């Protein structure tokens, strides 16, 4: 058993001015919501969610030194990873209608779930939320998967003007019912969506993100206040999320110092 899987990058896809998808020449046996630990030898290693399992695709937002290095990689170069790790989103038995809410580059993390929902004939509604028009990603991909796509931007430069949870609330008020709501994005956004779902009694699942060390539930760096994101998560229900002492409030750096979201 090799320590890492290594595969060639067969395609680079620009999703917007700062998000790029890397399509690898390999597949992984993953479920929607799982992640791989992407390794840049002698530099660092970070969790990246599986945007597609065949071919393995990750979407990278340029947010720091690690992702800047990933942006330097060219088609034909190799990338190494281990995993997939973590639990996955679950589709409730007999689900007919689901709502996906993606914020910023969190939208990409829902792509794999939309694909699975389509294969099961589940009607999918997708909210692609972003700060501004230029931040919107993957609108077409979700549309191509048969989802009803709604865009919201904080500044109103595209689609609904307002926050993701406000658009979700509008959909709920219009009488739409969903068997489950899935949210991925900034934690404050997921908190707002989860709170709304708890109020409306819709089941809800969110994907937690924390600084991660080992990726396998051992070092304890990615504790979110009672659950280890890599070992117990990253997917938790809305109810479980609200039981975590740090959900929507704080996250920790590699040393364990708390920071406000």
């Amino acid at each position, binding site marked *: *058993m*090799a*320590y*890492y899987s*290594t595969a060639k990058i067969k395609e680079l896809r620009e999703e917007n001015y700062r998000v790029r998808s890397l399509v690898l020449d390999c597949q992984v046996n993953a479920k929607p919501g799982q992640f791989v*630990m992407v*390794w840049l*030898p*002698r*530099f*660092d*290693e*970070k969790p990246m969610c599986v945007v597609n399992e065949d071919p393995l695709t990750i979407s990278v937002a340029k947010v720091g030194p690690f992702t800047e290095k990933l942006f330097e990689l060219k088609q034909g170069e*190799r990338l*190494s990873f*281990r995993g997939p790790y973590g639990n996955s989103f679950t589709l409730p038995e007999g689900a007919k209608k689901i709502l996906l809410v993606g914020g910023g580059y969190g939208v990409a993390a829902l792509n794999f779930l939309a694909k699975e929902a389509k294969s099961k004939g589940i009607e999918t509604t997708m909210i692609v939320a972003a700060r501004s028009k230029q931040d919107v990603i993957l609108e077409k991909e979700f549309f191509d998967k048969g989802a009803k796509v709604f865009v919201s931007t904080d500044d109103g430069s595209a689609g609904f003007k307002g926050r993701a949870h406000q658009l979700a609330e509008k959909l709920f008020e219009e009488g739409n019912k969903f068997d489950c709501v899935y949210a991925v994005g900034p934690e404050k956004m997921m908190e707002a969506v989860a709170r709304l779902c708890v109020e409306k009694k819709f089941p809800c699942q969110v994907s937690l993100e924390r600084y*991660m*060390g*080992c*990726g*396998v*539930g*051992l*070092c*304890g*760096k990615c*504790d979110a*206040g*009672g*659950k*280890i994101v890599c*070992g117990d998560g990253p997917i938790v229900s809305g109810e479980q999320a609200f039981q*975590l*002492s*740090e959900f929507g409030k704080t996250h*920790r750096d*590699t*040393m*364990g*110092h708390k920071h406000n979201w």
Partner: protein
Amino acid sequence: MLSLADLSTSIAGVQLRNPTVLASGILGTTAHIMARVASEGAGAITSKSASLAERKGHPNPIVVDQVAKGWMLNAVGLSNPGIEEKTEEIIEYKKLVKESNLNTPIIASVFASTAKEFGEAAEAISRAKPNAIELDESCPNVEDEFGSLFCLSEKNAAKAVEEARARVPNNIPIFAKLSPDVPAIEKIASACVEAGANGITAVNTAGPGMAIDIERAKPILANKYGGLSGPALKPLAIRSVYRIHAALPEVPIIGTGGVFTGEDAIEMLMAGASAVGIGTAAYGRGPGVFAKVCTEISEWMDSHGYSNLKEIIGKAHQ
């Protein structure tokens, strides 16, 4: 059938409802995650080592996971937020386990680069009133920074204990955590006990070892080298505990290294441990490992006619 076996044990006056102890460095980062491990049935929790000043530790990768093959390497590099924040986490932990009526004892692990700082760190953490303090004199992952391990020399190991003992209230027992990578661990242990240690934790990870990814032709760990743990460590730990118990039969030992099952735990107890550290198995078998190991110990005791751990501890020496 309900087991009649009594799994309670005691280490330097600290009563444990069962002998499983979360080993330092695994999941011991925050109050809530330590309380979670307590709720999974651990007999005691050891917090992740804290130092006077914050430490960033090594970049990733910090582990090489080959548990399926019987081993693991880690080089976290003692990342921690510093002793003050760790003290707050321990205070919070104690509050949480009081609320849940578990009151699972906590052993506060501290790390330092000089004997004097060991004393200062131990004194600082004693403000949280932990049930015991463990001096991590044996982390193999920071050698580039600090030179050879503290516990490689009887004199250095003892000096750290002496400094800590002088500054920590007498009602808090001190354990020295030692490395298996010495020719005669019992001599180091004896020196620590003479300097005031109330018990020994044996052992830390071994090596360190190394793994290279052949596709990339590069060492995996950011630190290149990392402490070896998991089942491969168990024979070294058994030998270490056996030798310490032979030399110091009255001194409580937390036997740590490669314990995954109840049978592993019983082997460790027979070697002379009064409690059994569990680290890598908390990943290998999940956080539920503590309850599982306890059930397996009980079943083994029932089927072999033992009713309490005293009949087992040190039995291989008789």
